[in-house]
């Protein structure tokens, strides 16, 4: 937050003061809501994709209201790429682990040998793990799509 204020004062980046202030206030709540949508997908509408998109939208808002460099300060490109890979790896890793631990592919019940929760409870937990992976991957890719398309591949100030 401090950083944003400094940067704005110094460089005069971004849109009008109203938009900048509103976005600055909104971003943490949007991110919190995104996390909520991901982890609460079992009990309410939501899940990995929806939550991931909301999380990604928070960074996109930052780069719309300020500029792309600002949003890349909060989520570096390297970290973003890492998260994208990690998300997809979580999904495929969990799926493959199920096969390695003696079940069929994607049979979360087979992970019972790791932590005995009971096969049905493991199915619920497996879905949760997978959704988190999906959420990470979707967030990272959405942000990266916006950065690349918005700056036509130059990764400078963007739109």
């Amino acid at each position, binding site marked *: 937050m401090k950083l944003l204020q400094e940067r704005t004062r110094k460089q005069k980046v971004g849109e009008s003061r109203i938009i900048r202030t509103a976005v600055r206030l909104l971003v943490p709540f949007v991110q919190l809501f995104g996390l909520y949508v991901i982890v609460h997908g079992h*009990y*309410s*509408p939501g*899940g990995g*994709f929806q939550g991931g998109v909301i999380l990604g939208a928070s960074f996109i808002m930052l780069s719309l209201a300020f500029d792309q460099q600002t949003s890349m300060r909060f989520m570096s490109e390297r970290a973003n790429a890492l998260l994208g890979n990690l998300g997809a790896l979580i999904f495929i890793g969990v799926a493959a682990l199920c096969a390695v631990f003696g079940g069929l592919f994607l049979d979360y019940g087979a992970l019972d040998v790791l932590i005995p929760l009971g096969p049905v409870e493991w199915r619920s937990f497996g879905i949760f793990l997978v959704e988190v992976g999906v959420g990470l991957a*979707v967030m990272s890719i959405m942000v990266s*799509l916006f950065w*690349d*398309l918005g700056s*036509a*591949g130059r990764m400078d100030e963007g739109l």
Partner: protein
Amino acid sequence: MDMVLAVIVAKYNYWVYVVLMMIGFYAMIGKRNLVKKLIGMNIFQTAIILMFVSAGVKHGAKIPILDKYEVLKHGVDATGVVNPLPHVLMLTAIVVAVSITGVALAILLRIYREYGTLEEDEILEKLGK
């Protein structure tokens, strides 16, 4: 007359989607502007998504999110809950559509960088020179 009306009421939504699809399809094959083609693709995909989702509708049914303990104790009547499968399928289709749109936009930017235009005719003209 009643028969005709009954058919119209029962099927009109599918007809609307077919019309939407054909708008998109025409834009994909008939328009000469590359962005319009892309928009046509999106219309087409969205119409298909609508068709699938409308296949899952049941009159007077509620959303497919249940009360866990109640269901475990008493079970649930399937006719009172909307069919969840088309929603699942269309979540996948939406993500695929988004991905393809992203890829197509990136490629369009590359084309624009190269030729300075997105009109197919002008690009072909430049290539012919």
